[in-house]
């Protein structure tokens, strides 16, 4: 029996099942009516004969189930026989078996791969809040979106500003950019790796409602250029203030030429350009001057934030 024959006979068997059920019911009904006739002949009334026949026959649903079980067992036996036969004929022609198995494996593999892609791209929502409301905005040139390989890039910053100002359909508009970059990790022994990195404003995380697993994300204020420098210098000034207090209470001199010389040496050693050493020294001298004045409490306070 070939696979096609088997499939056909399987389908036929399924469709015949119904007819067979009806036939069985008919067969049992015929038996029951004969039984009733006999009871009538022996002198019972029609109704009584009917019940007597039913009693004699027993539970007809149970009989039907027993017969059905016979069918099922036969079906299983035949199925087992078919499987055995198939396995034997496959073993007899290993070439055909190999091709069949390979075809199945490739088919199943390809389907699984395609489904995973479709599942990830089309069926599963993006892992962001209100993913169904996320859209990507592209500018176009002659109807062709500026994105991907055809026109690398995206809307200009000015476009983005116009979108944000004139659009009332979106809660938030954020700009992002991605590219490949060499990234080295803290562990200096590790090889730098090329990774896809993104450049985003702080509002990006707000818009997508992303929370970091540990630590915190950067804020919109830190986004502004220069903020980082100011924060660094302010942190250093705070430290200088503490040291100044300590020096005053222990009567140590504020000016420490040896320590300042070490600092200058460190700065010179750390300088990798593009500023010449001398220029960097000037900036540092100025910083140290200011910090020294802060330690002596000589600076006039005009910000209202630091000093008194």
């Amino acid at each position: 029996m070939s696979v096609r024959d088997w499939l056909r006979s399987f389908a036929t068997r399924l469709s015949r099942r119904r007819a067979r059920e009806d036939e069985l019911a008919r067969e049992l009904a015929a038996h029951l009516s004969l039984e009733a006739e006999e009871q009538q002949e022996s002198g019972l009334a029609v109704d009584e004969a009917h019940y007597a026949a039913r009693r004699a026959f027993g539970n007809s649903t149970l009989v039907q189930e027993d017969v059905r079980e016979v069918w099922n067992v036969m079906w299983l036996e035949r199925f087992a026989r078919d499987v055995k036969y198939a396995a034997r004929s496959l073993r007899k022609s290993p070439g055909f078996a190999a091709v069949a198995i390979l075809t199945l494996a490739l088919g199943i593999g390809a389907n699984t791969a395609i489904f995973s892609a479709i599942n990830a791209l089309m069926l599963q929502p993006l892992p962001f809040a209100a993913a169904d409301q996320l859209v990507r905005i592209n500018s176009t040139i002659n109807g062709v979106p500026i994105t991907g390989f055809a026109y690398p890039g995206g809307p200009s910053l000015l476009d983005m500003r116009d979108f944000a100002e004139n659009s009332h359909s979106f809660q938030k508009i954020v700009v992002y950019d991605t590219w490949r970059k060499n990234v080295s990790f803290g562990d200096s022994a590790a090889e730098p790796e090329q990774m896809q990195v993104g450049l985003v404003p702080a509002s990006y995380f707000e818009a997508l409602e992303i929370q970091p697993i540990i630590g915190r994300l950067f804020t919109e204020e830190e986004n502004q250029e220069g903020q980082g420098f100011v924060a660094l210098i302010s942190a250093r000034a705070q430290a200088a203030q503490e040291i100044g207090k300590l020096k005053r209470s222990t009567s140590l001199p504020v000016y420490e030429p040896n320590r300042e010389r070490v600092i200058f040496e460190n700065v010179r050693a750390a300088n990798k350009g593009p500023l010449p050493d001398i220029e960097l020294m000037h900036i540092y001298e100025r910083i140290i001057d200011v910090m020294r004045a802060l330690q002596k409490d000589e600076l006039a306070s005009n910000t209202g934030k630091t000093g008194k």
Partner: protein
Amino acid sequence: MPTIMAPKKTPSRTELLQGTLDMLILRTLLFGPAHGHQIAKHIQRTTDDVLQVEHGSLYPALHRMERKGWLAAKWELAKDRNREFKYYRLTPAGRKQLVREESRWKQLAAAVATVLRPAQEG
């Protein structure tokens, strides 16, 4: 499981070995095609109501034997009644099976008889 019970009239129950019902059905059909009711009645009558075929055993057995190819079934009009019944008849495979089962039964009966003889004598 095909079981054959004694009628309610007699107090003793006669339980036969598994597979015996198949043999009795095959044997009954040796005389010609019959439907389920006729087969049951025939077994009952020829054994003087000692063996009563339970319907819960008869129909599963009939269908199983039909599947095995020992019986062939056909819906036919009964001669004395104006209605159709499912008539079973023996196939050549069924005849061979009957021969096999009869010889096995005779062996078994003879063996059981051998065991019982001394007890009857003593």
